[in-house]
């Protein structure tokens, strides 16, 4: 409620500002790999110093790696634990971490890693192949939320410092997904089990766990024996959960915290020109869309006709929606693959707003006067998404497509996803999907995989064929080419009304240097220091 009021106030403020002058916000089109990195003018310190305070929009559910429910928990874990490989947030490339080098077998079913020697865990034990074994052993315990992902990997010890990882089912994104598997201490797991890791996580990462007072703070301290020489650069990292965004805005202004994230465009605007505060923006790897259904509720509806689906894509003015609701801070989508994904086709332009063409296509399909169809959207799940849905419905009405019952069926997000998983939502429903492995495959399969996928309401043999081909093509170039073909197909045969990919806003104190989150809000604080 409060957020809604503030949002409305914010939109009013933005509207006023837009009338006065063009908003000085970064153009989404310059996105690409761009992540604006905090300028690094002051020299990094020679030894760790200072306490970096990071606000979290929510308290992590757990900081045991296989239980981290969201990015915020994952980011705390990233500082305590290392993985075999990590992502360079500036170049987006994979680079060595606990593994120094790796080879992938021809068929993509065997990944051999040489492990780094002389790495110590926070409990003093040495890192070797047994810790990799323990990681997957601990992870696949059914008490863990992500047990199934861990259970999908078989670990084979070659020698103390060489392991082979084998996914049980072929997975082209496997290598990159390993960034998310944090290596635990075999000694701790043997002695304390998963319950022990929940309470006092021990990793080999740049910071060691000190205390967690739930809902109030998580304190980490620099690990002196960290393997990456010269890191970390701050003595302490303190995470402070602050659920209310207006309070986060206050805390960055008072300097009580150094980093705040998940700001809306309106909130970010209020920080412009504030002394000692800098804004960071980057495009999020998340696509918003209105989905069609051809499995259950949409069977026999006009939306089974591809011309109708094209017409509906022409009927919606994405540009106007993004301008009025997000101050222009979103990229218009032309498909389900984003510029940050492998094989993105930059030649595809978003469907232009062309109601005439939409009407013509509808007439051609046999619906000159439009038709009536049901539509649902979630409440409270995404920024301004209720308003986006309303806008889409209004645009559809302009070309004669009206809603069953005269209005959108708005459902509280829990109920919404429940009904989505049971495929009970109406033939049009809004949602969004992110991707964390640098490729669009998980979201493509999740949303378009037909009956096998809980949240999919769409099945198209041609898309299935592409997805199967992509899933079994281990050559990166060849896979990129397949993604391009699929995008072209999905452009002509849209399974969605494509909408937009939002821009993410964060704010930092000017003293913070070297902070670089990537398009899925992931960051490594070992590179960060405080210049003061």
């Amino acid at each position, binding site marked *: 409620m409060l957020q809604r009021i503030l949002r409305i106030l914010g939109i009013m403020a933005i509207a006023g500002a837009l009338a006065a002058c063009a908003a000085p916000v970064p153009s989404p089109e310059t996105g690409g790999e761009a992540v604006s990195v905090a300028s690094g003018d002051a020299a990094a310190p020679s030894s760790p110093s200072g306490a970096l305070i990071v606000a979290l929009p*929510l308290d992590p559910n757990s900081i045991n790696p296989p239980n981290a429910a969201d990015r915020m928990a994952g980011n705390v874990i990233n500082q305590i634990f290392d993985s075999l490989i990590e992502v360079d947030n500036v170049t987006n490339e994979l680079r060595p971490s606990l593994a120094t080098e790796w080879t992938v077998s021809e068929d993509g079913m065997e990944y051999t890693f040489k492990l780094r020697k002389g790495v110590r865990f926070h409990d003093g034990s040495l890192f070797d192949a047994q810790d990799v074994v323990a990681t997957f052993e601990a992870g696949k315990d059914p008490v863990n939320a*992500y047990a*199934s992902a861990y259970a999908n990997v078989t670990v084979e010890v070659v020698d103390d410092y060489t392991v082979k990882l084998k996914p049980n089912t072929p997975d082209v994104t496997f290598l990159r997904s390993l960034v998310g598997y944090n290596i635990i201490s075999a000694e701790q797991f043997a002695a304390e089990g998963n319950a022990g890791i929940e309470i006092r996580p021990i990793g080999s990462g740049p910071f060691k766990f000190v205390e967690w007072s*739930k809902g109030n703070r998580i304190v980490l301290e620099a690990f002196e024996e960290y393997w990456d020489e010269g890191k970390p650069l701050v003595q302490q990292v303190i995470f402070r959960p602050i*659920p209310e965004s207006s309070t986060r805005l206050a805390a960055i202004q008072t300097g009580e915290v150094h980093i705040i994230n998940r700001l809306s465009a309106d909130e970010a605007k209020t920080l412009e020109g504030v002394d000692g505060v800098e804004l960071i923006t980057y495009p999020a790897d998340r696509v918003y869309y209105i989905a069609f259904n051809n499995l259950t509720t949409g069977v026999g509806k006009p939306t089974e006709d591809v011309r109708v689906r094209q017409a509906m894509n022409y009927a919606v003015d994405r540009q106007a929606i993004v301008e009025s609701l997000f101050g222009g801070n979103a990229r218009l989508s032309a498909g389900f693959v984003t510029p940050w994904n492998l094989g993105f086709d930059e030649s595809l332009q978003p469907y232009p707003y062309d109601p005439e063409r939409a009407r013509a296509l509808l007439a051609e399909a046999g619906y000159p006067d439009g038709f009536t169809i049901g539509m649902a959207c979630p409440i409270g799940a995404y920024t301004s998404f209720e308003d986006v849905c309303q806008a889409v419905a209004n645009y559809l009405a302009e070309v004669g497509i009206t809603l069953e019952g005269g209005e959108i069926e708005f459902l509280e997000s829990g109920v919404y996803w429940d009904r989505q*998983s049971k495929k009970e939502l109406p033939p049009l429903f809004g949602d969004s999907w992110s991707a964390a492995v640098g490729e669009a495959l998980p979201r493509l399969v*999740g949303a378009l995989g037909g009956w096998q996928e809980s949240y999919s309401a769409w099945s198209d043999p041609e898309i299935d064929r592409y997805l199967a081909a992509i899933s079994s093509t281990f050559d990166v170039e060849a896979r990129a080419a397949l993604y391009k073909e699929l995008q072209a197909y999905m452009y002509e045969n849209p399974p969605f009304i494509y909408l937009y990919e939002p821009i993410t806003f964060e704010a930092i104190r000017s003293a913070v240097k070297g902070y670089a989150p990537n398009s899925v809000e992931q960051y490594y604080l070992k590179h960060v220091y405080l210049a003061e």
Partner: protein
Amino acid sequence: MQRYLLMRLGQSLLLLFGALVLVFWMVRLTGDPAALLIARDFASPEQLQEMRAALGLNDPLPVQFIRYAGDVLRGDLGYSLRFRQPVRDVIFAALPITLLLSTLAMAIALTVAIPLGVIGGVSPGSWKDSLARLVGLLGQATPTFWLALILIWVFAVNLRWLPSFGVDGLRSFILPAFALSIGAVGQLVRLTRSAVLEIRNEDYIRTARSKGLSPFTIGLHHIARNASIALVSVVGIQFTYLMAGSIYIESIFAIPGIGWMLNEAIRNRDFVLVQSLTLFIATFAVLIHLATDVIYSVLDPRIRHR
């Protein structure tokens, strides 16, 4: 007296049972917790089914209810999915924080409201009375969350006197307690004022005056005691309102008490914690009302003898 208390106790138990039923069914109206407990990319239909079975969500609702009611009667509030701890431990970790916050807010409210109300009540129509009435009106009309944001803006962002969020010692409770107290201040001022005003004109006050008692004795033994009856009942009820208000206030100030916890539970679809917390808060409210009745009957012999 005894019969009266027994009757109130019976009513309270009935009320709690009603709350139990209501909470149980309402929690289940908000969708399938299993769907939210598994990340979407990993949720195959089989896994969702497995999860539902593990949580006992596949049994018919009456069966689930009887199991739940049985657990509650044995004092077992269940296991929090969000905190991975027994609900009892989770609640007892957060309770002291909320009690401290509510007690501070109540202390602020009483300190401000009673003197103002009495001053207003004894001199109706004066400027002091106008002030009391203004505070009463503003207090009741000001939204708590709005005041909270204003307080943060003034005292944390601009003046830098107090922290804007979190729990770092007692200092952290000052702004939240003030924000939380505002509604209680409003109601208590109005109540005290009207109680004093009414009693002032009673016959027994005139009698007391005419038999030569000092204004102080009249104030303490006649006005204060009688006014306190009205006050006691409202203070109890206000305390339960303060607990409810802490849901907003704790979230705004990032204070991990019961209110914050309820938000967390709802956000994470921790239906076990939601139903147990709600039941706990309901029990707390019922107990306070019961205590209020007892104190009330001690203060007011008319109720005792009825």
